[in-house]
């Protein structure tokens, strides 16, 4: 019926968004960014028992230039904040951030002078994975939720407006409905 009958075999019609998002979500390459004990669970997620490669994520890149996803696994100390922000700025668009564990999400038990009370004060976070530390199943669940989020994005909308590295990121294609608490480009606090 319609147009599909007139095109030859071997050609399928779809939307550009569906095509691009299909490609993007099946090759999300995470940046290996283990900061504390959550990194152990992240390593376990990659390894054979849980095998993150089932979702197209088998390569943890050591360079931010080759990474699409930053998994912040662990507490972020104030000394680490400029490093983390710089790595995030060096990642090419489109890019996503998963805040793994209680410490990265809100400071966790470390409510003190040295630890940032949530990585979302430094970079915009897409998915929060609770737990102390989260089990690999939880991290995989968070990744699958991120896939659903990627499916709803559009190539027509600019996902990230980033005039320079110091300003904050905005994501008009936000699907969670929850605004970022403080998507701030501040470096020093």
């Amino acid at each position, binding site marked *: 019926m319609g147009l599909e009958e007139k095109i030859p075999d071997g050609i399928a019609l779809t939307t550009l968004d569906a095509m691009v998002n299909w490609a993007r979500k099946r090759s999300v390459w995470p940046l290996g960014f283990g900061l504390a004990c959550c990194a152990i669970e992240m390593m376990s997620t990659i390894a054979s028992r849980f095998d993150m490669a089932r979702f197209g994520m088998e390569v943890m890149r050591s360079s931010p230039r080759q990474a699409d996803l930053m998994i912040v696994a662990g507490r972020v100390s104030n000394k680490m904040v400029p490093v983390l922000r710089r790595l995030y700025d060096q990642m090419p668009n489109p890019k996503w951030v998963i805040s793994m564990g209680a410490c990265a999400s809100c400071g966790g038990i470390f409510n*003190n*002078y040295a630890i940032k009370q949530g990585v979302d004060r430094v970079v915009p976070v897409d998915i929060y994975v609770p737990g102390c530390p989260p089990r690999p199943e939880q991290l995989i669940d968070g990744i699958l939720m991120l896939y659903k989020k990627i499916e709803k994005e559009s190539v027509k909308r600019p996902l990230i407006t980033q005039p320079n590295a110091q300003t904050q990121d905005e994501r008009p294609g936000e699907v969670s409905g929850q605004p970022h608490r403080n998507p701030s480009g501040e470096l020093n606090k």
Partner: protein
Amino acid sequence: MNLSIDASFMEQSITDFLNNKFPGKVLGDYTYRGQFSLYVTADALYEIALALKEEAALSFDFLVDICSVDHLGKAWESEGRYEIVYTLLSLEHTYRFMLRVKIADHTVAPQSLCDIWHSANWLEREVWDMMGIEFKKHPNLTKIVTDDDLEGHPLRKDFGLVYEEPQFSHNHDEVLITPDNPNH
């Protein structure tokens, strides 16, 4: 090398050596679970440390660690608010003990031991960074552990917890996280 060194013999040797060479500078000894330590005066610490290293019968050639204690609010605070603990190790005699110094204030700190043991350089910087004890004649007493913007010395008892109110859904509006908020 005598691996089966008698600990009590070494304790007696150190005490006699320091009492003979620095009379009145050794204030007392303290043993906790077999770990022997001596309290010495702050003004003589440098000479005592140098002598402990150079005396062949002792030869404490390794400064393992420097710790500091804040006795603020304790009953014995009048003896000196801060206490600095130097852990020394003699590799030749396989024996370690501690030198302890009590000082009334962070400004009357003992002289830096960087000339004697190079490891003292970073260790004293850490003690200064976390406790604010200003070692005299230190070549580079600057921050080593805390971030550059942090003011104060976090391990002091009067530093404060720097507790930050967590933001939940029920107090989302009260605990606004903005750069202008002093709670931030």
